[in-house]
């Protein structure tokens, strides 16, 4: 009983540690990529300290209020986003043995947690009772309703060869061939949809400059800091999941499983974070059209190809 509680606490701590570490790494990567794009000198030490310095500065600010905001939901929005990210990271097996949450329906839990991201972002935009922020909130609803289907469907595709919705079988089913090669459409669709999900880079529609920051427009001080952290948490969670279901998770030669998993997660995280420097922000309407008429059919094709392959492999 006690031992069980202790091991649960230990696993929860592991998730928290991975989350904090990953978030910090994502913030530093963003600084590095930004400075590289600006073509200014990159000082690694300064870049490593910069996120902490910025965070400290925000922590010292007095929070601002708006006219009659919905204070409860406003306070809840970043917390909900972070909690969802934490739960979705928790179902990802970190190594063959270090599995924080072993759920039979791992990818469904992940998809469910990520489906609720829409709630957090919508509340963040709705709550301050500010016009541009409201526009941003509704943009994200449009975005969210569009990415959710292809996002869930490509995840289902990875479950086919494993014959299970749990993540450990999904990773072990990639023993001979990673899903990124076996299902070539999967990872690209996944990456696009998770960019939308974490409202980052070209798909940062609710945080665009045209709405002066949108959902974070009225944020200052600690709430702003928490919102930024929660957003990076989501990026970390989706990178880890992508590494597990498409890049074979902890599988790999020579190095220990945990290192492989960390490297693969880092690779996807860097890819996602860097996208901000290469792609301009997309129009909401264009994204909706493409998500429904291109991404969703592609995701379905991906599932069927994966199914046929799995069937042939099983014969």
């Amino acid at each position: 009983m006690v031992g069980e509680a202790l091991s649960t606490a230990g696993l929860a701590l592991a998730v928290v540690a991975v989350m904090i570490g990953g978030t910090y790494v994502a913030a530093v990567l963003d600084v590095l990529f930004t400075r590289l794009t600006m073509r200014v000198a990159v000082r690694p030490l300064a870049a490593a300290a910069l996120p902490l310095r910025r965070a400290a500065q925000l922590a010292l600010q007095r929070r601002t209020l708006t006219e009659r905001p919905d204070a409860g939901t406003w306070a809840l929005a970043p917390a909900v986003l972070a909690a969802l990210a934490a739960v979705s990271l928790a179902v990802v097996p970190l190594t063959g043995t270090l599995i924080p949450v072993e759920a039979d329906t791992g990818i469904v839990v992940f998809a469910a947690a990520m489906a609720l991201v829409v709630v957090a972002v919508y509340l963040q935009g709705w709550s301050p009772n500010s016009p541009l922020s409201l526009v941003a909130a509704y943009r994200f609803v449009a975005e969210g309703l569009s990415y959710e289907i292809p996002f869930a469907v490509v995840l289902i595709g990875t479950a086919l060869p494993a014959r299970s919705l749990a993540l450990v079988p999904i990773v072990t089913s990639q023993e001979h061939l990673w899903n990124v090669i076996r299902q070539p459409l999967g990872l690209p669709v996944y990456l696009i949809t998770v960019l939308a999900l974490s409202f980052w880079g070209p798909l940062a529609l609710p945080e665009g400059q045209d709405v002066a920051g949108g959902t974070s427009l009225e944020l200052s001080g600690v709430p702003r800091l928490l919102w930024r952290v929660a957003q990076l948490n989501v990026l970390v969670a989706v990178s880890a999941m992508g590494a597990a279901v498409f890049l074979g998770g902890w599988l790999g030669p020579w190095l220990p499983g945990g290192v492989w998993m960390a490297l693969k997660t880092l690779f996807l995280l860097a890819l996602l974070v860097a996208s901000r420097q290469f792609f301009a922000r997309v129009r909401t309407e264009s994204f909706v059209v493409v998500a429904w008429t291109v991404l969703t059919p592609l995701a379905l094709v991906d599932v069927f190809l994966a199914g046929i392959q799995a069937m042939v492999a099983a014969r």
Partner: protein
Amino acid sequence: MIADAVFWILAVLAVFSAWRVFRTDSMVRAAYWLLVSFVGVGLIMVMLKAEFLGVILILMMGGEMTIMAVFMVMFMMNPAGLNPMIMVHQNRAAMAAGFGSFALLSAVGLFARFPASVVAPTARATAELGTELLGDSMLVFQTAGVTLLAAMIGAVALVSVRGRFGPADEGSDAPEQQPAADADVDSSAPPSSTGPSSSAASSPTPPAPSTTPEVTEGAMPADHSHEGA
């Protein structure tokens, strides 16, 4: 022990948030209180070994409740509840329906013969569900597909503004409602109103704050019950 405690916490959470749905003025809050209630129920289902059904309930309700919030905000006057209002109407009928359905469901719970066998911890609930879908229930499954298609086409044909069938509002009558130019004119009810005329609100002095709901109800224009329908 812990499992019992968690169950009761979730059960109370589900009931409490379901009650809050009707006690808040804000449409967004109402929708998301309902979501909290569903999450509570979903987690209880997970505890009952129906892991897939519980999680999928949460997954679906995340999107669904957002759509509900967005639609309620679109059609309700005063969507954020900045002005006081009451979310419950036709109290007698509602209470009768509520208690009736509660009694019915309780009766099912009490009198139905549930299988006594304990679910084996190794049971693959999701796989069994899948086999069922591809086996005996296949017709149901495919009918669902056609029904969904019909729903989609129907919805789009009805609401699409620039579809092939002309503008969506063609031939429809816009409700005759006056813009809420000022507080007093606003509370005049539309012709279709069935509620009491809101004489209290059109008096120049607003009613004094009171804890009795009757006063507020008098102060409400009656048309909002139709708005939300």
